């Protein structure tokens, strides 16, 4: 009897130990192999060969997984999935392959990429924004795609250089633009006795105060501090931060938000809140566009493509609201890229797919039917006739993309949460910046 139970416990222990090892071993295996993979591909590239990998089994229908985020609005005529499915059909026929498209919602976007890209169901070709790049490049999960493009093709891409990150061409910029601009409900401004869109911080403040006085029920400047995701910083913080001449990180990747410029911007924001230019309800708002559409907010910062969806309000915009940095003031612009994952088995085909997706033909249709964005290639002739047509040509020096650095998402999240606390009156501007910097250096880096 005793012996049996001993055997049982021994067996149990052995089983646990075994599966423990199995769990660790196998989970680390794909990572190391992908690291080796990237090393191999980088040597090939230095040798100057183009097509690095031979297409796997070109006879069979190859399979690619493509992950893209949603762009279409609820009131749009077509859904993202329908659009891409339609567009990919000719590509699939031509290359005898199947491309399965997965629309990854913005909610939990980063989590889905982490869990997906490290498992079997992840994307071959995906879509990353600047905040996400560092870990994926640093851990060798992305392919340097430079060798798949001819010089001519590269020249055709207006923003090819933006995909050159941490010493390699890891991204192919696909959505560049969507600068965040200040839009104003001109009818409401007029009621407050203001005729023109504010173009400096002082004017923004005085307009806000005038609005507050004339229209107590309207939020002068609405901001979505109630948004659960730090992505709102692009609208509600970085335009101010860069208006004060701040830099997020220095050349070595050290965080430099806790500087005079950072303080100026943060204090200005706090002042707007204290004066009631930004209303108290901003801390629970998670959709400024609806407030703006409903006439509940007079001014908001918004992405240009979203601004164009607002049709029943008489609005105008200021491309840049100048802060202390004067004409060096900048605003946020997106630079989201297509990326190829190293685990992709058919890299030539994947590169072809990336080229196809960014081609003038697909992109112009995408801009026309799904989301209005500036063209990304020289041969894309589709130009939308709207208020922003000349914006890019005139102001491109004033647009700034986010830098790539270690655990950027963690930093932004911490900063966002601390700023929220500030807007609620629980923290002071200098505390926000110093605590975020400390926390980043000690816990996140």
């Amino acid at each position, binding site marked *: *009897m*005793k012996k*049996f*139970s001993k055997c*049982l*416990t021994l067996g149990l222990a052995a089983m646990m130990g075994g*599966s423990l090892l*199995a*769990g660790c071993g*196998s*989970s680390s295996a794909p990572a190391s192999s992908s690291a080796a993979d990237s090393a191999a591909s980088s040597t090939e590239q230095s040798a100057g060969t183009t097509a690095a990998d031979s297409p796997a089994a070109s006879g069979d229908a190859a399979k690619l997984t493509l992950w893209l985020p*949603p762009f279409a609005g*609820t009131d749009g005529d077509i*859904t993202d*999935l329908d659009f891409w499915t339609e567009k990919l059909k000719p590509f699939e026929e031509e290359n005898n392959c199947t491309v399965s498209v*997965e*629309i*990854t*919602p*913005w*909610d*939990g976007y980063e*989590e*889905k990429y982490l*869990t*997906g890209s*490290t*498992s*079997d*169901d*992840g994307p071959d070709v995906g879509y990353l924004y600047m905040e996400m790049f560092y870990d994926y490049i640093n851990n060798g999960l992305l392919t340097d795609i430079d060798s798949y493009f001819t010089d001519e093709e590269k020249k055709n891409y207006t923003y090819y250089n933006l995909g050159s990150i941490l010493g390699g061409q890891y991204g192919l910029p696909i959505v560049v633009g969507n600068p965040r601009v200040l839009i104003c409900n001109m009818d409401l401004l007029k009621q407050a006795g203001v005729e023109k869109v504010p173009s400096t911080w002082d004017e923004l403040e005085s307009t806000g105060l005038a609005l507050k006085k004339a229209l107590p029920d309207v939020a002068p400047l609405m901001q979505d501090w109630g*948004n*659960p*995701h730090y992505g709102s910083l692009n609208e509600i913080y970085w335009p101010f931060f860069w208006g004060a001449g701040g830099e997020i990180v220095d050349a070595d990747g050290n965080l430099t938000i806790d500087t005079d410029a950072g303080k100026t911007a943060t204090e200005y924001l706090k002042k707007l809140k204290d004066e009631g230019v930004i209303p108290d309800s901003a801390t629970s708002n*998670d*959709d400024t566009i*609806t407030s703006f*559409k*409903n006439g509940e907010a007079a001014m908001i910062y918004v992405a240009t493509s979203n601004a164009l969806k607002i049709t029943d309000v008489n609005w105008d915009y200021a491309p840049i609201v100048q802060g202390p940095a004067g004409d060096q003031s900048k605003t946020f612009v997106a630079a989201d890229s297509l990326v190829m994952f190293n685990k992709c088995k058919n890299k030539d085909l994947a590169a072809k797919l990336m080229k196809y997706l960014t081609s003038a033909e697909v992109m112009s249709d995408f801009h026309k039917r799904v989301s209005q964005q500036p063209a990304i290639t020289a041969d894309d002739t589709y130009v939308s006739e709207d208020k922003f047509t000349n914006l890019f040509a005139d102001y491109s020096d004033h647009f700034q993309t986010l830098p790539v650095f270690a655990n950027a998402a963690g930093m932004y999240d911490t900063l966002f949460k601390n700023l929220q606390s500030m807007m609620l009156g629980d923290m002071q501007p200098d505390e926000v910046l110093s605590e975020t910097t400390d926390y980043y250096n000690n816990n996140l880096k």
Partner: protein
Amino acid sequence: MNSQDLRYGALHKKRKWTVVSMFGMALAILFAVICIAPFIYMMLMSFTQSTTAMFRLNEIHFQDLSNYQYVFHNNGFFRSLLNSILVTGCSCFFNCVIASMAAYGFEKKEFPGKEKLYQLYLATMMIPGQVTMIPIFLIMKSMHLLNTYFALIVLILNAFGVILIRQFMKGVPDDLLEAAQVDGCPEFQIYLKVVLPLIRPVLVSLVIFTFVTSWNDFMWPLISTSKSSMYTLTVALSLLKTQYATNYGLLMAGSAVSFVFPFVLYIFLQKQFVEGIALSGIKG
């Protein structure tokens, strides 16, 4: 005298309604209203195209099903609904089979180390699921089981069912099993034909309990599914939130879809639901 009168409370029937009990009645009714009102609000809002949370009667158009069409067509809610039903159904079934087998083994069979093993089962009850979430994710990943129904179902099975059924099985007389054995009934047939029918109430209880847990499960499906075709309703609904933050009609239609199935089930199986939870409380 009917059976109701045997229970506690019958005694007080003839007492007069005092101020205190009137107050209690008012509270009970008030709370019942608070319990149901959000769902009525949800149903009504799901028929509006409202972008404000404000509730306006004239905005409700019951013939307008566009919100429902939208979540079914564009957000894959139909697939998610099927996933949720499949996952919950399988969880209930397998949990009953596996837990009742184990409980039978523990209660009616003798083998060395039995009680120690049972202690281990009891101990695992103390572990919050989130503590083991990361390693389980890694195990599933290394076994290539992410994005499968297996992964979604298997985690619902836990020691609670075993403990619950074992408590109940103490009431199954050993004589009955021995009699069946003497009659030459094969071992597995005894479990199937004698034991299972006798523990039916507790199985119902476990089904209800598993149903509520599995239908509500959120964190694990959120982590383990990256394909939209594998999302359960809770995940699909949570993803609706940021995308259409203030499209209240749409959000409410999504909520309604996720609510209607368990609600209809509850309407039909009300007694089982309530008694199942009560039994799991008393025995577990």
